[in-house]
Structures are given as structure tokens and as C-alpha cells.
């Protein structure tokens, strides 16, 4: 995969080697490439037991009884636990506490944990699980998300009176959250169906072109390669230490503690090696289960899910059903837009309320539309639970609104880029929630740049056009060029970055500066999860740049320091990077103070005159004042250690109001524009993506190589959603829980990517940076699907596009 990265505007430069703006090697990079990195599934203790989870074979059933007698008799089994053994609260959850630690009364999805076994060998545990007798009364699945949202007669997934109701989100029946948005002419009619319909009819009459379409986005999986796994170790104080691959240690801790019935200081957590996350590790998997087994048996317990189990063991991207209508004037000016979006949360809420908050507020995309009506629903069904995944509600809506833009452009006879530019937002625009875009948003320029990027060469100009690897279908050899048609498509997406809707997702960093063997060394300690994104590198770069010290050690992430928030929402460079920056600034200020105390700094020099460069305290006026080594002295021989801990908070945000959906709910916005070029075998419905070029504004580039990696990865994940990635669910049962049948792109599916990076700084963010990991996931999918439409002339309203859709076979 060849990548060209173009940079515009100036680089952020640092005088310290491997500081910000350079691309130092990842500390974990070589280990991962050579296979020596210890992932969470590699952990081992001499006397440990193996934990296993008995899961429901039914999507929906009443539990009439659980008999563990025979399982306990299996030699080597040390514990068999059910819901009766949960020491504290029986339910937990990211936002709503609705998910049982172990099922009681009912199971609500296939794969729901029912019982736990700890044994001396995985095979022993497996045999014991076979001997647990669960008496189920099977109930019909509640699998239709539209009925769950709109039909009050539809059976309830959660019986009335069993859950705390979150009224602020209009939670009722199977609705986890309902969020309306009404602007312009719809505002005054809000909530009155008849009047809203009349407003719509009036707007329709005023429009020169109207497009109305239903779209669907399938259930995508994060497809991380490291299965859920961890080790729980009982401790002498009656507590437990949990080593686990997760995205947010503290939020795990806050969910675990009530269920274990232990005080917070009795549960310690340490990050284990994470093999990918993408949102799928926001929810708990084995944490409470492992801890329960460890506390019961008094021995360390390791749990590792197998691949099929992993498909049941984590949440997926919400599948969405969307109805869009857009009306525009003849010159392309958008007049109105309506959207009904239903996202299927499955059996438990997980992140569904927040996903609805994003899907609604960004539902129409980065376009100026004066009259908007949005109804967004997140629902309970007995389908697999869905929650966080890269792009988080914005991905689904983006596929819809971008498809609408293309359809409208076609109807108006406009180039799809021209229509988008015509309605593009920019700094000062207000999105449909009334929130103003306070930072630069050069959307029109980005679209123009995407259109102007050089096109890939025609097939006939390839070095070897007969090379099967350049053709749709690849070496399976289904075409030598027959039926192959090229298409081009564009996509643009707007993503909120950091947490939204009033959530203070602060991050904490502790930074220590000391002298070891005559050399200054900086230790950076946070609880932030390195999930592959490269925060571990960026933290070091910030410390080097801020403190002018080359040697930086990154402490393992654990709960020995305050929360860092989640490695989600493209937020860690912003939030934990910001916290490291603040802590470094505090350390620097302390060093200055110490230097003053010790008479090293001339009395009339302000802090602004001072800096730390190359391990020395430097005055802009007087030059080098002293070395840090001389100033602080070796810590081993009683020298001064400077340590500061700081929290970084972003500007506060607000909840959306429950009637009109207004409010400044988001922290920051990111945007990416894609242009996709595809070759489609129109007779067989197979696709080869020829180019997938991106223009993204990242505010400031901290690590150019990692940034390119994030954009490539996000674009490829979007490609997967466009062409192949879907967990197929029929009657609430997953049909393809394996990597044989859940396909993700290979290198032969992944095209060269030209990446054009813009750096318009966000004045509110540390270094002006903008989270970069998610926006390309939004725009890549609609760009590719648009290109396939361009090649085939088909409507293609379902993502991923299936071969059947391209050749016109109904499914």
C-alpha cells in the first residue's frame, strides 16, 4: 500500500530530538512486529486457574433453573458460579445499569453469560460447563428495531419495573433513547405531528428537487485481533488486582466495584497488552467474572475468549435504518432535510444513549440547512448488544446524508462536489443543534483539493494490466477485464471529538523529573489505554518538547494515578496529551522556582525569559544558566525530584434539550473528505478499490507517521463497511461469527492512499490539535459506495454493498 502524505501549512517543530512534529519509533513497535509483545492473552501465573463462561444458546428465553451439581463434581473444578454468587450489585453498564453480571430470570441475547467455571485446565472447565444444566423456556425473539422504536404493542425486552428509567432521554418501552431535533419552520410545529406534516408539505412545494430514500447500515464488528482476555489475582487484603486489555481503566473500576461489593481501594487495575479496541473494549467483558472466580477460589484466574466467543463477548456497531428526505432549490441550495434514524442497541444499552446523541446532532452532516426535522431512536431488541465503535453514530448517518447529496446532485444535474461546496459549513456556521463552529472548518477548500488530486492511471496504462491482483476478484481469476467499469465517488463527514453532552471526560497525568546517573530523566504516568493508536509515543514527544529532556520513560498504565478517560472519541492526544502538557508545564514552573530559590536565576528575569533546552535551564537574555543535573542533583544521593500531577478538562458541553434538540453538546469537530476510485465487475458484483484518497484537517500534526497510520486504518475500516463487513443477524442469531465468514479487508483490498493533511489550528485545543482517528471512518464508506454507484448505476442503499446488490438480485 503506497501512501503519499502531503503536508500544508507549517510543521510544529521541536528542538528536542524525537519531540513533537517528528516521527520517533513506537516503544512497542518492534516487539509487536517481531511477535514478542505480551498481549493480555499471554499472561501466565504458576498457580493460576482457567475461567470459562457458559453462555446462552438462545437469544430470548426465561431461565427456569440452573443446576450446577454435576459440574462441581468434575475433578479439577474449583468453582462454578451463577448470578446467586454475585457479591454486590447484580447489574452494571456504561450508561444505564441494565446488564446482569450473570443472567437471572431471563436471557436477552444469544451468548449472554449465564454461569462461570474455574478449573485447573481449560479442557476441564469446558467439560464442567457441559454438565451445567440450565432449564430454559424459549421465547420468540424481539428482533425488529423499527417495531421496537415505533410499535407500542411490540413485546418488551426488559420487563416493566425492572430498570431505572432515564427520563432525560425519553426512555420508555423498548426505546433506550429518543432524541428529536427541530429547526427553522419545524421548530414552531415541534411535537405536533399534523402540523409538522403541513410544514413538510409546504417546504416540498417550495423545493425544485426532492429526494427521499431509505438506507440501511449493517452491523459492523471492530474485528480486533486480540480476543477479550485478562488475569484476576486475589490479594492479601481481600481485594483483587485485575490485569486486562481495556479502553478505560477507571470506568471499568467504577462498574466493577459495586458488583464485587468491595470498596474502591480494594480493586486495583493494570492495563494488559491491548490487541486492538476500536470501541469494542469500552464495555466490560471478563473483568467482574475473573474477579469473582479469583475471590472465590483464592487463586489467580485467567480468562481468554476464543474467536467465536469474542463475537458474542463484545458490542458491535449499531445497525441503522434511516429514512432521509432532502429538498433543494434549482441552484442546489438546500431548503430542508428530514431524518428518521433507528439504531439497534440490542439487549443492553451500552453506549446507545450517546450514540443516539451523535447520530441525531450530526444526522444531516456538515451542511447549511435552514429547516430540519430529526427523529433519532435507540432501541432494545434481543439482537446482539451494540455500543461503541470508531465513528460512533456519525458513521451510520454519514452514509445516509452523503448518499442523499449524490442523489440530489444527480437530480439537479450538478457535480457532487459542487453541490457539497454550495452548502458547505465553515467557521461560524451553526450545526442543527444550534452549536456554533468556533474553530476553522475549511470544508469547501478540502472538497476542492480532493477533486483536484491526481487521478490513478487507467487500467490500460498499468505496467501489467493482466495482473489479476489489479482486477476485481483478484487471483480468484473471475475476470480478465470483462465487465469491469470504473467509477468515482466523494464523501465528507463531520465527527464530534472528545465526549459530548455535558460529560466532563477529564484526563490526569503525573510527570516526574529527576536526575539519574547525572542525566535528567522524565517519567510520565497516566492511566490512559494504548490501544494501538500511538498515545504512548505522543506522551513521550510532549514531555521531550516541553521539558527539553531526551530521556523519557512511560510508566505502565494503571489505577495508581487518576482517570485518563477513555481511549475513544479520538480524544487521547487532546485530553491525555493535554494533561501531560499541563503537568510538564507545572514541572517546568517548579524547576524555575527551585532555580530562583537557589539563586541561579538573575532577579529581574521573568519566567517568560526562561526555558528548558537540552537538559539545561536557559535564559533568552543570559544564555545557559545551569544544567538540570547541577541544579537538581542525583535523586539517588538525595537530589531534588520534581513531580507534578495535573488534570486536563475541555470546555464544558451541554445536554441536548429533549424537545428541540438544541444545545452546544460537542467539544470539538473533525472532518475528512475522501475521493474513491473503484473498478467494478458489474456482471459478478465484485469490486476493486483502485484509490482511496483523503484530505483531512488535523489542526496540528504531532507524529506524521502515526497520523498517516490512523488515516489509512480508519479509511480501510470504512472500506470494510462499504464492501464486506457485516455481522449477519437472522432472528437475533449471528450467522457468521468467525473470520472465515466475517470478512475484513486484506492488503489486496486496500488501495494506495494519497493523504493531504491540513493544519488549521483549533485555538481551544492543546497545540491546536484535532483528534484524527475517527473522521476518515465516516467519509470513506459513502465515497466508495458512491463510486460503485457511479460504475453501476445501481441505487445501493445498503452498506455494505453486496454482490447481489450490484448485479440486481433481491435479498
Amino acid at each position, binding site marked *: 500500500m503506497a501512501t503519499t502524505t502531503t503536508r500544508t501549512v507549517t510543521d510544529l517543530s521541536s528542538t528536542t530530538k524525537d519531540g513533537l512534529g517528528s516521527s520517533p519509533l513506537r516503544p512497542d513497535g518492534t516487539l509487536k512486529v517481531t511477535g514478542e509483545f505480551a498481549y493480555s492473552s499471554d499472561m501466565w501465573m504458576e498457580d493460576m486457574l482457567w475461567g470459562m463462561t457458559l453462555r446462552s444458546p438462545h437469544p430470548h428465553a426465561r431461565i427456569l433453573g440452573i443446576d450446577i451439581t454435576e459440574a462441581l463434581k468434575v475433578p479439577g473444578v474449583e468453582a462454578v458460579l451463577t448470578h446467586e454468587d454475585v457479591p454486590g450489585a447484580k447489574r452494571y453498564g456504561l450508561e444505564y445499569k441494565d446488564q446482569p453480571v450473570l443472567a437471572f430470570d431471563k436471557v436477552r441475547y444469544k451468548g449472554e453469560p449465564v454461569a462461570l467455571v474455574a478449573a485447573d485446565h481449560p479442557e476441564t472447565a469446558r467439560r464442567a460447563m457441559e454438565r451445567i444444566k440450565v432449564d430454559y423456556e424459549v421465547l420468540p425473539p424481539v428482533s425488529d428495531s423499527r417495531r421496537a422504536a415505533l410499535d407500542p404493542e411490540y413485546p418488551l425486552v426488559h420487563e416493566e419495573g425492572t430498570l431505572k428509567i432515564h427520563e432525560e432521554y425519553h426512555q420508555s418501552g423498548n426505546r433506550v433513547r429518543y432524541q428529536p431535533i427541530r429547526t427553522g419552520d419545524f421548530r414552531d410545529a415541534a411535537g405536533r405531528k399534523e402540523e409538522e406534516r403541513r410544514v413538510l408539505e409546504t417546504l416540498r412545494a417550495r423545493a425544485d428537487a426532492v429526494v427521499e430514500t431509505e438506507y440501511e447500515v449493517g452491523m459492523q464488528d471492530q474485528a480486533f485481533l486480540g480476543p477479550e482476555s485478562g488475569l484476576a489475582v486475589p490479594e492479601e487484603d481481600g481485594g483483587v488486582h485485575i490485569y486486562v486489555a481495556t479502553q478505560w481503566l477507571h470506568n471499568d473500576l467504577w462498574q466493577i466495584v459495586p458488583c464485587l461489593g468491595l470498596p474502591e481501594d480494594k480493586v486495583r487495575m493494570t492495563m494488559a497488552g491491548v490487541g486492538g479496541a476500536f470501541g469494542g473494549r469500552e464495555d466490560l467483558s471478563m473483568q467482574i467474572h475473573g474477579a469473582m472466580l479469583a475471590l472465590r477460589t483464592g487463586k489467580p484466574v485467567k480468562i481468554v475468549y476464543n474467536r467465536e466467543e469474542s463475537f458474542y463477548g463484545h458490542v458491535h456497531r449499531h445497525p441503522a435504518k434511516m429514512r432521509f428526505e432532502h429538498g433543494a432549490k434549482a441552484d442546489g441550495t438546500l431548503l430542508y432535510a428530514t431524518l428518521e434514524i433507528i439504531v439497534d442497541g440490542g439487549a443492553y444499552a451500552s453506549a446507545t444513549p450517546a450514540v443516539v446523541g451523535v447520530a441525531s446532532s450530526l444526522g444531516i452532516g456538515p451542511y447549511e440547512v435552514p429547516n430540519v426535522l430529526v427523529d433519532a431512536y435507540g432501541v432494545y431488541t434481543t439482537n446482539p448488544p451494540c455500543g461503541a465503535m470508531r465513528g460512533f453514530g456519525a458513521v451510520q448517518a454519514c452514509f445516509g446524508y452523503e448518499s442523499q447529496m449524490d442523489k440530489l446532485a444527480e437530480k439537479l444535474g450538478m457535480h457532487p462536489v459542487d453541490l457539497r461546496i454550495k452548502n458547505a459549513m465553515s467557521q461560524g456556521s451553526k450545526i442543527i443543534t444550534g452549536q456554533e463552529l468556533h474553530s476553522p472548518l475549511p470544508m469547501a477548500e478540502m472538497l476542492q483539493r480532493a477533486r483536484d488530486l491526481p487521478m490513478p492511471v487507467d487500467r490500460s496504462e498499468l505496467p501489467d494490466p493482466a495482473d489479476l491482483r489489479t482486477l*476485481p476478484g483478484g487471483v480468484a481469476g473471475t475476470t480478465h477485464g*470483462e465487465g469491469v467499469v470504473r467509477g468515482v465517488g466523494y464523501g465528507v463527514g463531520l465527527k464530534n471529538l472528545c465526549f459530548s453532552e455535558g460529560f466532563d471526560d477529564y484526563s490526569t497525568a503525573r510527570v516526574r523529573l529527576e536526575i539519574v546517573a547525572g542525566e535528567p530523566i522524565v517519567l510520565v504516568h497516566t492511566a490512559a489505554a494504548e490501544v494501538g493508536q500511538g498515545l504512548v509515543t505522543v506522551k513521550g514527544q510532549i514531555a521531550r518538547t516541553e521539558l527539553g529532556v531526551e530521556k523519557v520513560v512511560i510508566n505502565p498504565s494503571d489505577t495508581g494515578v487518576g482517570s485518563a478517560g477513555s481511549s475513544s472519541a479520538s480524544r487521547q492526544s487532546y485530553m491525555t496529551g493535554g494533561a501531560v502538557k499541563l503537568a510538564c508545564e507545572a514541572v517546568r514552573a517548579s524547576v524555575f522556582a527551585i532555580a530562583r530559590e537557589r539563586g541561579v536565576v538573575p532577579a529581574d528575569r521573568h519566567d517568560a525569559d526562561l526555558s528548558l533546552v537540552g537538559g539545561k535551564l536557559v535564559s533568552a537574555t543570559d544564555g545557559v544558566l545551569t544544567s538540570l543535573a547541577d541544579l537538581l542533583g542525583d535523586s539517588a544521593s538525595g537530589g531534588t525530584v520534581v513531580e507534578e500531577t495535573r488534570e486536563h478538562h475541555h470546555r464544558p458541553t451541554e445536554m441536548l434539550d429533549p424537545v428541540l434538540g438544541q444545545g452546544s453538546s460537542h467539544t470539538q469537530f473533525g472532518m475528512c473528505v475522501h475521493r474513491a476510485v473503484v473498478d467494478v465487475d458489474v456482471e459478478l458484483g465484485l469490486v476493486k478499490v483502485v484509490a482511496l484518497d483523503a484530505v483531512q484537517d488535523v489542526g496540528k500534526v504531532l507524529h506524521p507517521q502515526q497520523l498517516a497510520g490512523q488515516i489509512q486504518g480508519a479509511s480501510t475500516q470504512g472500506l470494510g463497511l462499504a464492501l464486506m463487513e457485516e455481522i449477519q443477524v437472522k432472528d437475533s442469531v449471528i450467522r457468521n461469527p468467525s473470520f*472465515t465468514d466475517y470478512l475484513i479487508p486484506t492488503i489486496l483490498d486496500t488501495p494506495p492512499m494519497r493523504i493531504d493533511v491540513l493544519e488549521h489550528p483549533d485555538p481551544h485545543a492543546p497545540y491546536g490539535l484535532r483528534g484524527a482517528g475517527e473522521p476518515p471512518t465516516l467519509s470513506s464508506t459513502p465515497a466508495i459506495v458512491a463510486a460503485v454507484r457511479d460504475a453501476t448505476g445501481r441505487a445501493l442503499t445498503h452498506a455494505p454493498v453486496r454482490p447481489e446488490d450490484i*448485479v440486481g438480485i433481491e435479498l
Partner: protein
Amino acid sequence: MEFLSPSTLEEALEAKSAHPDGVPIMGGTDVMVELNFDKRRPETLIDLARIPELAEWGPDGEYTRLGAGVPYTRIIENLQKQAPALARASRTVASPQIRNRGTVGGNLGGASPAGDTHPPLLATDAVIELASVRGRRTVAARDFYLSFRTTALQPDELITAILLPAPKGPQQFLKIGTRNAMVISVAGFSLSLDAENRTVGTGLGSVGPTPMRAEAAEEFLTAEFDWESGSVPSEATVRRFGELVASAARPIDDQRGSADYRKHSMSVMARRALSWSVTEYRKGATRCA
């Protein structure tokens, strides 16, 4: 579980005779997956990896004799001329790591209708050699697949070799997968023209309970094709051939594709395979003249 590791074929046959339920394992690319997913718990595994003759290939009269344990990578590297369709099919199997381990013998033993090597073996009329303590026998690939995952192999027998007839005309293999590499077959098709005997062979994969032939399509093309000069068949002939191939298919709807799509793709693949074969046939005919 008992793990037997015979070092000669004789020992292996004795082991199989003593343990008719024992599962032979070579590259392990199918068997290990089934064990790991807990789909199979055999009492005995018979490891065939140490038996030299299974990993050998070479000329055998009018055939190329391919040891049942030769990995796909060797076939791709060495048998392009002797077995072009099989070599192409081997290239579409999974990933390089799997191709380094997986074998045609394993494909035949598992007898999944989606196995990539079945269509070329059917189309080219390959012969499968089976052995037991009772002796050796051969079965035509065309008589080997009996019903879903059931073959002519007896419980005490091992698959020892595949006899590949020397190609006497163009051979094709095409396979549908919904990504561009490392994908299980949604539908596979192989076509072989035998200029000497003036016969047509077909093989269809993933479109029925067993790998199968499209016999009506073979007869039709045998009769219609201009064997003398290889003139380009009419569009109607090509289309009819595609229809006949598709109508032989008995596919199901599953998570990999719909039955209708499988039939549709079979007709497209058959048409393309025919047109490529005609082009090659004409080149061959020109060279002969």
C-alpha cells in the same frame, strides 16, 4: 486423544485399519480448526506428515502422480504445466501460510463442497488413489463425491495420491469470493477442453451438497464446439452453455451468498471460461498447423 505418528505408509495403513475412526492429519489446516472450534473430538489422530511418498510428485505414465500430502505452494510452483486448473485453484486457497501447509489430500478428505480443488479434479477427470491394508485402488474424481461430506473413501483407507491426466487443451478455474484474497469460495467453476478426445469437462464448487459436474453443459458444448478449427462459438451458444452450467447448480442461501447469486455467477463464470478457452484453443490449433 491418541496421537499416532507412523513413519511409513505401511504403518499408517495398519494404524488406519486398527483405528477406522481415526482422523488422518497432514497440514492440519482443516482438522485443527475443527478441533479448536470443538466441532470434532476424534479418539485418534493419525499424523501423515512423516511419510515421504505422500509429499512427492512426478510423472506416472500418462498422468502426473501427485502425493496426497503435497502442499498447495509446491503445486503452484511446480505443476502449472501439468495441471493448470489445479495450480490456479491452489493459488486461490487462503493465505501463503495455509498454502504452505494445506494439501489436496486434505481437501478430498474433508470433502467440503466449497473445497477449491474439487472443480478442477472433476473437470480434468483426475483419478484418486486410495490405499488400505487390503491393497490399493483408484476411483475417478467423478465417482468420488457421494453426498454431503461423504466420499467413496472406506473407513480403513487413506488417500495416497491424485493422478492428474496430462492436459490436452485449455483448462480454466474461476472462483467467487467477496473480497480480493484469502476468501472461501462462494461459487467455483472449472472447465477443461480435451482436444484429443474432443470432450468437455466441468466442475462446480459451493453450489450443492457435493462438488458436481454440469453434464448437460458438457454434452452440449462437446456437440456444438468446432473442434476442428476452434472457431468462436455464437453468442447464443456461449449463453446456452452458461445457462446449462447454472441449471446444474443446486445452491442454497447462506451467509456467504444467495442461491440466486450463486446460479447467476455460475453462468457468468462459465461464459467467461468458455471464451478464454476458445482463445487458447485457437492459439493451440494455430501452433499445431
